[in-house]
């Protein structure tokens, strides 16, 4: 059946015959395992194509969405991390294979006549592969991608006179931004792959036409070589074995070393130190050897001229080296030169990888301090040179700091900045831990880095929260749709900062106006306050009419709540220094002589007086207390003294015989005063007592009579 279909296709197109003839290329003796690298590089390109096309199903080339879509691929899609890892590592694998393939072609002398153009196309393929890697590097739009592109495109600006035009051309504008991303995307997914496929087809077609180079044969001695095997299946089988091994290795690396995403690209993160990918390291390192005295011309030489000349040399190499010998030892000059050049490249690459940006070596105390720093989650707000939270100040650029100041800020952030929302270090922190923390924080400078695992484990934030000005603008977002915040955050999340610094809306006069908001838009309150928050005031602390009687006990329990509205010295306005001069220590014993009109200037006499005279009486002082009190007073003198001085007893017992003696009815006229306020009327009602005997003859007590 399959044979029939193939025959039919062949009749119609001759495609099968073409493929068969193409694959059955006779191979020279000695061609074998060393010649698998070209096919291996091509296989990896196919892997890159497959994974790249599928990544495009989900990726969005826009600064607003690139990072989110890359993060979605890595973290949420099934096998997304694996596919992204395959593509990420596949790029490096492919470049390594291309380089090995070129080295093999060089040392086997495969660039020589008649295969010069195959070599030239190979050099171009190397350049396109590097272009693919460079343009693909930006696409995840994380910090590493962004800053590597900033540096990479800036190198193009080293060309004197016209450098900034070239940089702008690369970037699509003066800065790396949305236009850079879209043009890098177009280059990466369309233009470069199309060019690469075209060059590769030409490259392979030329190889098929001119044959795989017979190993070590002189240029003019190829025809006599025996060709005992065919490309298919002999070489294809070897290629397949290598491809399987490579794919296995690629899977292993992609699984063991996932392609991490750093934080989203932040052009404002001035502390971030960019690093180029490994294949640009030799060029990156070369710039360090350019004398600074050469100025921009030196940078131009290191960044563009030397690499440019190297590429040019590779392109013209087949036409310069006309030695017909292929055996390396018979062309010692070029072979030694190549080994030397390779050594220089390796040296530059390795020293570039080793040198890196200056990296602080933490002392043991600083290491302990760093652990405390991370345990306390300081890094969730404070970044260190571009890694970590964005809410607080990045601690890298402005360091190091004075330990004394750091200790002061850590203990009491508001001592330095009254509006600081930073929480102080917990009181439970041991003295040693605190000292370690101070040592670490005060030492942080531009050479410190946030540990990679910390950056990788940062919580995933929604896209809105990754905007540069999110922290400053979140209050407006809350007002737009307060219920949305509550979908992820508990009220305590807001309080973790706002207990220290009230929202702008809650500043002056807020208590007077809060009721309207709470009534009309309770969802605003519910963002930051728990449901029972209102009750904390409205249940117990509402200033109802009986508040003066209740306020003492309530304020004892809810002193903090009082201070939500009242300053601490508010109590003193009544209980302390601002009492009028008349309210001396013994005022309570004299106050009955005060004019009610004067009292009412400060006191609500209706409630204030009853607070003591009614409501605050002890339970024992019931209606029959006056008749009951003598026996109680004798046995519980101390109890009486809680509220009363001895003068209080004398105010009655000092002038009047109490209890009244038997002959009191005869004597009372001489002792009793009929003036209003007389001690008699503390116990007796005028109408009920005096009129009982005296009837209407008894004159009314004179109201203006002195006490």
């Amino acid at each position, binding site marked *: 059946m399959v044979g029939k279909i193939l025959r039919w296709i062949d009749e119609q197109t001759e495609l099968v015959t073409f493929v068969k003839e193409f694959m059955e290329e006779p191979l020279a003796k000695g061609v074998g395992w060393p010649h698998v690298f070209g096919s291996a590089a091509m296989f990896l390109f196919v892997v890159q194509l497959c994974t790249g096309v599928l990544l495009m199903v989900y990726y969005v080339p826009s600064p607003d969405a690139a990072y989110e879509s890359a993060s979605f691929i890595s973290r949420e899609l099934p096998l997304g991390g694996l596919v992204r890892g395959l593509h990420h590592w596949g790029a490096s694998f492919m470049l390594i294979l291309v380089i090995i393939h070129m080295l093999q072609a060089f040392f086997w002398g495969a660039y020589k006549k008649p295969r010069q153009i195959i070599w030239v196309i190979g050099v171009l393929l190397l350049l396109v592969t590097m272009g693919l890697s460079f343009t693909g590097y930006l696409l995840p739009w994380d910090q590493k991608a962004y800053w590597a592109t900033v540096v990479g495109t800036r190198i193009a600006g080293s060309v004197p006179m016209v450098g900034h035009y070239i940089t702008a051309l690369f970037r699509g504008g003066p800065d790396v931004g949305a236009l850079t991303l879209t043009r890098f995307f177009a280059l990466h997914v369309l233009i470069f792959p199309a060019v690469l496929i075209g060059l590769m087809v030409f490259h392979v077609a030329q190889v098929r036409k001119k044959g795989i180079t017979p190993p070590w044969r002189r240029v003019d001695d190829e025809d006599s070589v025996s060709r005992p095997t065919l490309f*298919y299946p002999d070489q294809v*089988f070897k290629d*397949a074995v290598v491809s*399987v091994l490579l794919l296995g290795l690629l899977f292993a690396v992609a699984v063991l070393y996932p392609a991490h995403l750093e934080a989203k690209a932040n052009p404002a993160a001035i502390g971030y130190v960019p690093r180029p990918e490994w294949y640009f390291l030799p060029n990156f390192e070369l710039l360090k050897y350019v004398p600074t005295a050469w100025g921009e011309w030196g940078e131009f030489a290191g960044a563009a001229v030397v690499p440019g000349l190297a590429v040019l040399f590779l392109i013209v190499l087949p036409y310069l080296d006309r030695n017909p010998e292929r055996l390396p030892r018979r062309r010692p000059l070029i072979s030694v030169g190549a080994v030397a050049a390779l050594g220089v490249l390796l040296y530059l690459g390795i020293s570039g990888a080793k040198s890196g940006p200056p990296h602080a070596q933490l002392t043991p105390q600083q290491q302990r301090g760093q652990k405390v720093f991370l345990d306390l989650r300081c890094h969730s707000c404070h970044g260190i040179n571009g890694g970590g939270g964005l809410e607080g100040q990045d601690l890298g650029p402005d360091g190091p700091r004075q330990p004394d100041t750091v200790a002061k800020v850590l203990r009491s952030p508001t001592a330095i900045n009254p509006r600081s929302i930073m929480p102080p270090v917990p009181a439970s922190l041991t003295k040693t831990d605190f000292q370690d923390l101070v040592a670490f924080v005060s030492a942080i400078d531009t050479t410190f880095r946030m540990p990679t695992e910390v950056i990788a484990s940062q919580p995933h934030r929604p896209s809105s929260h990754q905007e540069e000005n999110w922290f400053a603008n979140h209050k407006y977002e809350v007002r737009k*749709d307060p219920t949305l915040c509550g*979908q992820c955050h508990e009220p305590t999340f807001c309080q973790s900062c706002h207990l220290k610094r009230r929202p702008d809306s809650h500043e002056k006069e807020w208590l007077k106006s809060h009721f309207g908001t709470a009534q009309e838009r309770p969802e605003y309150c519910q963002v930051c306050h728990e449901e029972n928050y209102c009750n904390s005031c409205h249940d117990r602390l509402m200033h109802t009419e009986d508040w003066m009687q209740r306020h003492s006990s309530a304020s004892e329990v809810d002193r903090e709540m009082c201070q939500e509205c009242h300053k601490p010295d508010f109590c003193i306005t009544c209980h302390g220094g601002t009492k009028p001069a008349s309210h001396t220590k013994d005022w309570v014993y004299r106050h009955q002589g005060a004019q009610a009109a004067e009292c009412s200037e400060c006191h609500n006499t209706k409630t204030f007086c009853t607070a003591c005279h009614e409501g605050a009486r002890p339970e024992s002082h019931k209606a029959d207390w006056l008749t009951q009190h003598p026996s109680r007073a004798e046995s519980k003198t101390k109890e009486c003294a809680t509220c009363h001085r001895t003068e209080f007893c004398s105010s009655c017992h000092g002038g009047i015989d109490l209890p009244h003696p038997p002959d009191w009815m005869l004597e009372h006229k001489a002792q009793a005063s009929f003036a209003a306020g007389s001690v008699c009327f503390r116990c007796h009602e005028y109408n009920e007592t005096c009129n009982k005997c005296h009837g209407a003859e008894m004159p009314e007590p004179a109201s203006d009579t002195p006490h």
Partner: protein
Amino acid sequence: MGDIRESAAGKAEEDLSLITRRRFLGYGSGLLSALIGIALGLPLVRFYVGDTFKEREGRWLRLGAIEEVTAGQPKLFRASHVDRDGWRQTARRESVYAVTQDGKDYVVFSNACTHLGCPVHWDDSAQSFLCPCHNGGFNIRGEVTKGPAPRPLDRLEHKVEEGTLYVKVMGG
């Protein structure tokens, strides 16, 4: 070159062991290629399919205290939630009517008219949910009383926990 191939093929036909070797390499190449195809293809297909067929679980969205819903008086609740749309997180605002007749059993209606999805509103004087688009009407039980709506108002899954009314929504 063609002669070389023919001679190689000719020799191969004559030499049985060579035929066996060629077949072995040919089948071996095919097998390895198939292995590569499967090893690479299966993860990529799974990646392409993604969460296409994954059922969305939905989430409970807090509406408010049940005391806010008085008997015989539909209460409109609005609440927002985050909905996942692939890599996007979008805010969705839900408007629903909660109804109780006895203060014990509650019904939560979507405020989307079942005709074309316009938002209905409760009209006290008409004692109906009215749709502004095509003059549809629904009574307090959500039943169609007039207009083109093909079915009653959609009832949403809900629950009451500790005096708070929740409704189940799709997404996030």
